[in-house]
């Protein structure tokens, strides 16, 4: 049964099965330097193995929330990742646990070759070379792109770039994968491949998307954001049926 909020900033999570052992955000507020209020009291809990979709209209604050999850932005409120408070001292450790993949894979891939890009995280963590190589191979294996190890990222297709972008964070062995609109700009074939990939990854996941068809197919739980607040959090099947709710937040039943 979905819980919907109109404007009460305090949110009662409905998934009480766990107490947010992987991620818990408590009453998070944030405004951008120019004064724009992007988050006003967001609370969210994720449990081990959860696969959660984050949906909402443009400007709802989805990307802003995601940037908080590994401390790139810091608002007011309480955040814990796998028991670690998100605060400056813990950031390097937290960044190893939260794998953040940006919407545009071009932002994620800044090295000339695929190998160098996937190796960036492990290298920066100071791992020894053998370990780095092993991690790169493992990550590329997971996204089925082993053959692309020495290719130039610049020349890959959009779908390939997305996969590599995911590999660049998998190589850090994150606890949680946070993906910002992974299916944007993909053609149906590449999109299908991505869906299969996400299904196969055995990892906690928070994914923002405008692609409600993918959400319905892949994510049992769905969180709706609008105007910097979480307005609904529940089972995807339930929320998708509530056309009035979807309509009210700029969404359309697929």
């Amino acid at each position, binding site marked *: 049964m979905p819980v919907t909020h109109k404007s009460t900033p305090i949110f009662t999570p409905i998934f009480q099965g766990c107490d947010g052992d992987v991620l818990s955000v408590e009453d998070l507020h944030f405004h951008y330097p120019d004064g724009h209020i992007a988050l006003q009291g967001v609370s969210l809990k994720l449990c081990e193995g959860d696969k959660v979709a984050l949906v909402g209209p443009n400007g709802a604050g989805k990307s802003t929330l995601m940037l908080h999850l590994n401390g790139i932005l810091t608002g007011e409120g309480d955040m814990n990742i796998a028991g670690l408070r998100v605060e400056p001292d813990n950031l390097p450790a937290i960044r190893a646990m939260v794998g*953040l993949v940006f919407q545009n894979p071009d932002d994620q891939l800044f090295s000339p070759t695929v190998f160098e890009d996937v190796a960036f995280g492990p290298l920066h963590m100071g791992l020894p070379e053998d370990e780095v190589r092993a991690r790169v191979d493992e990550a590329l294996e997971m996204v089925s792109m082993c053959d692309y190890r020495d290719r130039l990222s610049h020349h890959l297709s959009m779908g390939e770039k997305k996969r590599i972008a995911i590999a660049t964070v998998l190589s850090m062995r994150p606890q949680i994968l946070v993906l910002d609109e992974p299916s944007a700009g993909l053609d149906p074939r590449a999109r299908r491949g991505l869906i299969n990939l996400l299904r196969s990854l055995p990892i906690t996941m928070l994914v923002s998307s405008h692609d409600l068809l993918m959400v319905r197919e892949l994510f049992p739980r769905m969180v709706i954001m609008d105007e910097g607040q979480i307005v609904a959090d529940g089972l995807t099947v339930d929320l998708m049926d509530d056309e009035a709710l979807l309509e009210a937040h700029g969404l359309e039943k697929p």
Partner: protein
Amino acid sequence: MHADAFDRFHQAESRLHNLDPRVKVVVTVLFILSNALLPDGAWSAFGLCWIALLGANHLSNLGIDFSFRRSFIALPFALAAVSAIFSPLGTPLAEWTLGPLVLIPTDYGLVKFGSILLRSWLSVQAAILLVATTRFPDMIHAFEHLRVPAVLTTIVAFLYRYLFVLTDEVMRLLRARESRSATVAGQRSGRNVVWRARVTGNMAGQLFLRSYERSDRIYNAMLARGYSGQMRTLNPHVMKSSDWSFAALSIAIILLLQLTGRF
């Protein structure tokens, strides 16, 4: 980054906002030129300059201390002028020994230093006011009217437009790098400086290629709309009589300032 962070234009309804951008540009440049022409130690003239600026601030409806509050940008550069205090000319005022250096501040040097700072500070304020009351595209039009080669003004117009697009890209690149800059317990992280600089170089190369390819697409978009090598623009500005009188008044004031400074 949000585009607004770069926009220095401040929306308001005022005489200064409605003035023809040409007048604003020319008067600002003349004001800065006049500052440079004022002799060292012309304190009363500098004071009057500031009063003129306050008047302009008042006309802008942005608050009388608007340009003052934002005028400390060039301050760090003042360090470069500190050494002028120890000019070999003029009467020594003291003598300080600092290691191998013997520093002798002189009265001439102090006057020089003070004048440099004041000139710079006044000029910066004038520029701030210009930018705050003139939208950048209008400023570009002003330069077109003032016969700056069209190639240059168009390049600057493109630069202004894509500034926002590309700085956004850079911000996202930096964020992506930051979010993967992790450590694990017990490991020295981040490798060495050269590696980090090289990663930054890769980012610059990446940005270059993307920009280069974008310019191809933009060129295509221009071709598709009839571009054939000649940029054409409509110049939306017509000088009104109020613009002429403002220009005349300002030039008179600037001449007056020069006279005060010299006699």
